[in-house]
Structures are given as structure tokens and as C-alpha cells.
């Protein structure tokens, strides 16, 4: 029987005070005139957010909000794993593992918890912090190893024989890996991105829409993807600064929340300041930015060393919801990557759909998993 401990977030006051001293002592840098978000995180918005962080944001209130659901830790393969566990209503609930990505956290799914647990015969939700993230141990592992650990969480620790998975970003990658590693137990998965070209494709057999998508992704890597290369190669160099400066950390994370959400040019169409800062705080108070970005390097190394399970076509049934704020891949690309049992395109939402459009995201999950056993 695995040892499970109750967990409550309770950051020592001294650490909170230290944070505000650091924020106050920020040495701001200049920005080109009219830069907007074109050179990276916009200085005006960052200052507005930091001002609120210092004078309006209430960490203790947010901490209490995070603690409203039961949280636990357990140790799997020598790594502490933090998870939220919420049981839904009804006799015939489905166990559903929700996996976050980077630079979000287990907090990504907080707004969908009531939506997925309140109706009759709903879900039992298990929402972990991935190894290396948040309140899990600071051991960075590749997505196959993360999948192995989360499978043990679901089966050995929580005793679910069979279960479902949903995820986005790195959560999609881990979900695909788990589906390929444990197809007998993983009954179906739902993902919001199916994977991107990795250089191994034969483009001569691709449809025109796929070729167009390939060009879009290539362009994206040149204009937006530098973070990925950096985190995949030399994360340690970056981490000294991010772990030391709350404003530096906020800027690094914020750029992605701006660029990847369906916000129409105003980040606060998608997130409140409280939500943005709480997600940043989870990285800050747990000091997990270094190990979280090192997972990119671990994935890159595993790819060179023989490949990841997530790169293989997934054969269990897969629900794909392509939100408008995501890179728009054609359905045939999804079918090349996974066994598409359902492909839908909701009207609104982006990369962080569970946070941006919680109801729409919850409906996508409910509709896909309904009737599956």
C-alpha cells in the first residue's frame, strides 16, 4: 500500500516577504519605442501586473482557494508527486487524469473541477503536478518516465484499473505516451494538440493542408520558438535568473500566456491578473522553474537516444479539440498522429482552454468521454 500524505499549501511568511523585497528592488530595463509584445513581454503590461502583485494581489486568499480541494503527496520511483483528488457525483464516475503543461501548472484545471464533478455520474478527477513541476519533486524526467510515474499513481497508489486522460501542451505529450505504454488501462485520451513536425516526416506524402501547416510551424519556430530550443539545450543557464528574480520569471511565463491564448490582443480577455500571478507564484514558491524547463532537455535527450513513446501513433481512441487560438493543424495531420475518434473545433479558446473557456473545455471532455467505458 502506497504511502499517501495530505498536503496543504502553506508558504512561510518570510518567503512572501522576501518575494516583495525582490519585487521592490527590481532593476527594470528599457524597451524599444512602440515594441508592443513584438520583442517579448510588453514592459507596460508587465509593470501594471507587478504593481498589482505588490499592492492588490492577496496570496493568502489564493492559497486558500488552491487548498479548497483535497491535495496529497506520495512518493513514486523516488520522486515526490503532488496531486489534487476530487470525487464527482453519482455511482458510475469515470476516473480522469488531467495533465497540465508548461508554463502552466496543476492550477490550469481548477476552473473545470466543479464543471466536471457536479453533474450526475461525472468524473473522479486526479490532477497531478508533473515530476519537476510545482509541489512535486524537483526531478526533471522525460515524458515517458512522467507517464510511467503517473500510471503508477493511477493504478498502484489510487487503485484505478482503467482510466481516462485529458491534457494539453506537455500534458498531451504525456497522455499520448501513457496511451502507448499502457493501452490496456488507458481507455481513451482527450488532447488539444497532437504534436508538431519533428524533421522525420516524409513531406512528399502530405496533403496540401498538412504542407501549409508544416510551413506555419516552421515559421513559428523561427519567430516564437527560441524558448523551446533554449530550454531543450541549456536550461541551467536560464534558470539562475528566473529563480532569482520574480519579475524575470513573470516575464518569461507571461509572454507565453499572451502569445498562446485566444485573447484578441488583450491578455485580460483570457485571464485575470490573479490567475496569471497565481500560476507564476506556483513556480516561484516551489522554486520549480529550473526542473520544469529541464524536462524539455530530458525530452530532447530521449529523442536523440531512441525516441519517445509519444512520437508513435496512438491507437487508443483519441478525442481532439482544436481551439482557435492553437496552431491550426488539419484533421489529416491529427489522423496521422493518433486514432481520432472525435475531432471538433470549438468557437473560442486557446492553448490554455481549460483556463480561458472552462465551460467549453468541460463540454468537450464530457461529450468525448460520455458512453466510453
Amino acid at each position, binding site marked *: 500500500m502506497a504511502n499517501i500524505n495530505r498536503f496543504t499549501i502553506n508558504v512561510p511568511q518570510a518567503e512572501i516577504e522576501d518575494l516583495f523585497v525582490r519585487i521592490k528592488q527590481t532593476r527594470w530595463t528599457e524597451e524599444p519605442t512602440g515594441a508592443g509584445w513584438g520583442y517579448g513581454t510588453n514592459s507596460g503590461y508587465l509593470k501594471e501586473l507587478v504593481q498589482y502583485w505588490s499592492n492588490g494581489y492577496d496570496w493568502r486568499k489564493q492559497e486558500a482557494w488552491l487548498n479548497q480541494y483535497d491535495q496529497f503527496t506520495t512518493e513514486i520511483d523516488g520522486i515526490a508527486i503532488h496531486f489534487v483528488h476530487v470525487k464527482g457525483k453519482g455511482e458510475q464516475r469515470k476516473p480522469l487524469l488531467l495533465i497540465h503543461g508548461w508554463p502552466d501548472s496543476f492550477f490550469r484545471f481548477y*476552473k473545470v473541477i*466543479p*464543471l*466536471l464533478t*457536479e*453533474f*450526475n455520474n461525472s468524473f473522479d478527477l486526479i490532477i497531478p503536478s508533473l515530476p519537476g513541476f510545482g509541489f512535486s519533486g524537483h526531478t526533471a524526467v522525460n515524458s515517458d518516465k512522467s507517464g510511467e510515474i503517473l500510471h503508477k499513481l493511477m493504478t498502484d497508489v489510487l487503485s484505478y484499473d482503467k482510466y481516462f486522460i485529458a491534457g494539453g501542451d506537455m500534458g498531451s505529450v504525456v497522455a499520448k505516451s501513457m496511451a502507448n505504454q499502457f493501452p490496456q488501462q488507458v481507455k481513451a485520451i482527450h488532447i488539444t494538440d497532437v504534436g508538431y513536425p519533428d524533421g522525420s516526416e516524409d513531406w512528399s506524402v502530405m496533403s496540401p493542408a498538412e504542407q501549409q501547416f508544416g510551413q506555419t510551424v516552421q515559421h513559428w519556430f523561427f519567430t516564437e520558438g527560441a524558448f523551446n530550443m533554449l530550454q531543450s539545450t541549456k536550461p541551467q543557464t536560464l534558470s539562475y535568473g528566473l529563480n532569482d528574480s520574480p519579475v524575470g520569471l513573470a516575464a518569461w511565463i507571461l509572454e507565453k500566456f499572451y502569445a498562446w491564448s485566444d485573447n484578441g490582443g488583450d491578455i*485580460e*480577455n*483570457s*485571464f*485575470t491578473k490573479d*490567475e496569471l500571478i497565481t500560476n507564476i507564484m506556483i513556480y516561484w514558491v516551489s522554486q520549480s522553474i529550473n526542473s520544469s524547463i529541464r524536462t524539455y532537455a530530458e525530452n530532447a535527450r530521449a529523442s536523440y537516444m531512441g525516441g519517445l513513446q509519444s512520437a508513435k501513433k496512438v491507437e487508443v481512441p483519441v478525442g481532439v479539440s482544436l481551439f482557435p487560438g492553437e496552431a491550426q493543424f488539419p484533421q489529416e495531420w491529427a489522423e496521422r498522429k493518433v486514432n481520432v475518434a472525435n475531432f471538433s473545433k470549438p*468557437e*473560442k*479558446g486557446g492553448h490554455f482552454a481549460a483556463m*480561458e*473557456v*472552462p*465551460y*467549453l473545455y*468541460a*463540454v468537450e471532455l*464530457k*461529450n468525448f468521454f460520455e458512453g466510453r467505458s
Partner: protein
Amino acid sequence: MIFKKHIPAYPLSQYIQHILYINGPQQVPYLIELPDAKLNLVIELENDSVNTLYTDSKLQGERTMKRGWVSGSNAQAVVYKNNMHSTIVSIRFTIGGFYALTKIPMSEIIYPGLEIDLLLGNTANKLYQLLINEPEIDKIFEHIERYFINYIADNSFETSLVKFIDKHIDSPIDWLVHKSGYSHKHVIQVVKKQTGFSLKYLQRLHRFRKVLNAIQQQGPNISWTSITYDHGYFDQAHFVKEFIHFTGYSPAQYFNIHTGSDHNKIFSDIKLIGG
């Protein structure tokens, strides 16, 4: 008490039936909201005020709400604890109007008290900030109209399947399906997605609303027998069962509530009730 009703101009009027502004306390412990298949978004303009509802008349299933929440799309009545410190704006959509406007599908995930920002995203929080800082009631209506008019993408709702069904809801289901030109399965799916209800349940709700109107118009010597047969119920037992299903009260109990205050004699959607 300040009560103001605003009916939006075309084209928004296709989707939103009306917007109400209600300020001032009612001297009763509870209010019951009766189901009518129309989605209602309720916004509490008192920033620090907490509202409480119960999902049945026996005060079970308590939920608390702060800023804005979903109400009125319920399959059955919900009961509110009266909030003495409250200024409410209530946006009532036409049947299927919310989906037609926002393309957000109805689903059994929607529960009474669901916060508006979970449904509409953070733009709802921005609208809320505008509303609580707006002193003029007419401007409050304007902000709400401006917010929702941005959603209008096409003008096809007027000729849509759901509008057709709403217009002919008294007709037999087979006739509705036949006249729509779609398959039975398609009609069922579309109606469920856009209204949150099955076609049959919509018809039951419609008949129940007609009963409420009849009660509203009758004097103290109400004839339950004629109400039962006028509205096509098989017998009194079926009528009573159906009435309890929708309201949580027997017809006689409901009639006592209805005649218990001047407010209740005027308003049919929200009834004030004692402890």
C-alpha cells in the same frame, strides 16, 4: 424598490428577451424561481454581497454565488435565500438565444449557480467591473447590450430550427420533425445542444407555463379540474405529479404562495415564499 425593464432593439432582441434591474429588499426569507427553458444570467452589483440558492424546495443542494451566475435554464424550480443587500441585473435570453448568440452549447454541465466567467471566460469579469462602476441604470443596459452585440456573427437565428420549434411548440413532435425537413435524430440533437432540453421536455415546460398563466388569471375560486383538463393532462394525479416535479410544491401549496403577496399576484417567474 427600483424595478426597470429594458427590451433590446433588433437584432439583439432576437436573442435577449429583456434585461431587468432590481434594487431593494423584499421582506421574505425565500424566493422561488420557476423553470421556463430560457437561460437567465444574473449579476449581483453589490460587490461584496453573497447570494445563496438551493436546487430544490426542501432547501437541499446549497450553492453560494458572488458576482454573476446562471439561472433560469433549470429543468426544475430553484429557491433563493432572500438577500437583503442586493442589486440585481438579470438578462433573460429567448429560447435558444444564448446558443445562437455565443455558440456556447447548452449541456447538463450547466447547473443553477454556475458562475458566468466559467461560461463566458474572463470577458465576463471585465463586463462585471464596468457594471459595478456604472451609476446610471440606462448605461448599465447599454454596457450589457454592447457586450453581447459583439457576439452577433450572422443573422440566421430568425430562420433557425429552434425558432421554428419555439413558434410551433404546441404541435405534435412528429409534425415538428416532418415540417423541419431534418431527421428525427438531427432535430433532437440540435434542440438539446441549443436549449439544453429535449423536445419533449420543452413541450412539458411549455404546458406547465400555460398552467401558471392560468393560475395567475384565476380568482380565489380556482377550479383545478378545469385547469387539469383544459391543459390536456390525463387526470388530476398526473397533473399534480407534473406540478410537483417542476415546482417542488403541490398546486394547492403553490396557490397559497401565489395569493400570499401582492408581488406574487403580479409576477409569475419569481415568487416570494415564507420559511
